[in-house]
């Protein structure tokens, strides 16, 4: 409740003024407001628009034409990109990225929510210690883990499969998501659990029928982040995947832009645009839930 009170305070100073000369003041303010927003949006979106526009430039135009619009627009870049790399069709890279992305979402949602339930609702020995350790992994730089992790997966014979990239997701290793859900579950009234318990529910039933439906916003937030992170992840796939057949998009993208041999800038930009589309679609579709999720989290208090 306390958080809501800050919101109305922003409005009152306007109200007394508005009563006297409502129309001119409002229009002027709106115009300034809109112009400001448009200018800001243009600045922020320019690089993105430039990239989309540049994907229609022929490769030779890069460097000579810095401008926004291509001089000789062409779709050759997209045609070339769709042909794929070294006999591997481009849809294969999209497919691999999709498997990894969806796998990451499923794994994260299932494992993190269960881990979070345990931390928030179960009273087991050493819980504070384990919780601290879990939070501690957030502070551990990824680069410290690379080599030991690589050795483990190599000795398990999992290199060049998707397992190293997905196993962790199914074991709740992303402390960020676990923490997010723990906080969420802690804010749910314990009485709900107790009522269910009196009706004869065990932990499984409480988790499934009470907790999961109530933490949906947190689950959606986690899904979106898990998907986008996985879709954009470069280092993980780089280290664990060897066969070009298994490459997800970020790796395939790099192959078009090798500086030591001839670089095809047009193709690089074109595949970047294509790689961006699914994430943008995903975001557009789920952003409503994302905002909901973040907003409701703030309200619990």
């Amino acid at each position, binding site marked *: 409740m306390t958080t809501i009170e800050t919101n109305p305070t922003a409005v009152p100073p306007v109200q007394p003024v508005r009563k006297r000369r409502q129309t001119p003041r409002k229009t002027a303010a709106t115009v300034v407001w809109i112009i400001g927003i448009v200018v800001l949006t243009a600045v922020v979106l320019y690089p993105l628009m430039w990239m989309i526009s540049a994907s229609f430039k022929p*490769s*030779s135009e*890069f*460097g*000579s034409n*810095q401008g926004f619009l291509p001089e000789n627009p062409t779709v050759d870049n997209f045609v070339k990109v769709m042909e794929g*790399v*070294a*006999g591997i069709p481009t849809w294969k890279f999209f497919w691999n990225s999709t498997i990894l992305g969806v796998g990451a979402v499923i794994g994260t949602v299932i*494992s993190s929510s*269960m*881990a979070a*339930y*345990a*931390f928030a*609702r*179960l*009273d*087991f020995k050493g*819980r504070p210690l*384990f919780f601290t350790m*879990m939070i501690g992994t957030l502070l551990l730089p990824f680069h410290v883990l*690379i*080599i*030991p992790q*690589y*050795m*483990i997966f*190599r*000795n*398990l014979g999992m*290199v060049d499969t998707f397992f190293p990239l997905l196993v962790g997701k199914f*074991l*709740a*290793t992303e402390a960020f998501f*676990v923490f997010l859900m723990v906080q969420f579950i802690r804010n749910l009234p314990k009485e709900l659990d107790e009522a269910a*318990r009196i009706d004869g529910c*065990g*932990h499984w039933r409480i988790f499934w029928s009470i907790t999961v439906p109530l933490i949906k916003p947190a689950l959606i937030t986690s899904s979106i982040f898990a998907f986008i992170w996985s879709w954009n992840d*470069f*280092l993980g796939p*780089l*280290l664990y995947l*060897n*066969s*070009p057949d298994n490459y997800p998009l970020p*790796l395939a993208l*790099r*192959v*078009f*832009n*090798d*500086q*030591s*041999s*001839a*670089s*095809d*800038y047009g193709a690089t930009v074109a595949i970047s645009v294509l790689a961006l589309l699914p994430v943008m679609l995903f975001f557009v579709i789920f952003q409503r839930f994302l905002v909901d999720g973040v907003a409701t989290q703030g309200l619990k208090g």
Partner: protein
Amino acid sequence: MFKRISPRAGSGVAVTLAAALMLTACGGSGGGDAGGTPDPNEEVTLNFTWWGNEDRAERYEKAIALFEEENPNIDVNGTFMDFPAYWEKRQTEAAGGGLPDVMQFDYSYLRQYGQNGLLLDLTGFEGDGLTTDSIDETLLATGKLEDQTLAVPTGYNAWSLFENPAVLEQAGVEGYEGGTTWDDYDAYMASVTEASGGEVYGGTDYTMRIQNFELQLRQEGRDLFTEEGEINFTQEELAEFWSSAEDIRENAVIPARQLEEVAPKSGFGANLTATEMTWSNFMGGYLGDTGAEDLNIVAPPTSDPSVQDLYQKPSMLHAVSAGTEHPEAAVAFIEFLINSPEVGEIFGATLGVPASETALEGAALEGPELEVKEYLDSVADRIGEPPAAPVVGYGALENTFLTLGTSIGLGAITPEEAAQQFFDEAAVTLGS
């Protein structure tokens, strides 16, 4: 109140611990005494990796298919990445013990991996599975470290000076003849810039590249680094080198700011400069970048034409990991990649002008590639002994040099400050 349920979250820890316990000692030391040809009845899988674009990938796929046809028992898994990511991945594999059997290798990383015993000594295979007398001796020596043959060069290139006829025509001037004094070259660049009225430029500030400094040092009879891997020039000399280009920065070369604008292309690649000094294997890339039909290639300036200042640099090498389980098969694959005329035909000069005579015959170079080969032949008199394999961290120093050179061009620091910074960083990089 609640019955205790064993924590789910603990399972992750348990699995990780179990996995850690399964760790065994990694990596193995390769024997250098071995030799011979692979057993034709043994089923072998080789992992092979390279960096490069999709064009190179297609060529390698062809070569691999051909090799597998000739050696039905050997299966080659090819994998590729772009250059920076390639080395990031190798670094992890080197530490984690999973280097691929055969690797396309870069000259500047040879010492680092060789010193740490990560590469198989191929000396025992020479003449017994691996033909090396098809390769020029000084060039072959670039793959050696302390008398061990650790890598075999695929092809070579040399420092050169490119000219863009289309830009020259636009400016209305003749091409640079090549091999004159540095002062003549400076004057020539200024004349191009003046003739075009500043629309295009005579060249790029050559003091930004460490290779041009190396060239000037070699013209005085020494290398950038001593055999022991120590810096072989003084801070004052470096500052003087950077200061020497003050005049051309003013009226002859493309401004540093404009270079930043056209990045990742170079000024030459963006058709803004008439000349540029770089490695001769840039021909293919520059033809693509400029969109030009034809580029000329001539000898870089020299203070003394009788000095052997240029050298054959291996454009890339092939190496075998010390931990490979199939050294014979790996060597057979390298032999095929280096010497077979069919591979020469597939690659042409895209990996540098083929080092091996037999591959060169198969390559039947023509057009721009032939031009590169002819250039290399034309400067044969100026080609001398290559310097010792680059010091560990050379790549980083090369980059620092370029960054500092750019800062000088932008007017952000003075040559003296830059030289100071270079030596500070070199001290850290070289660990002295």
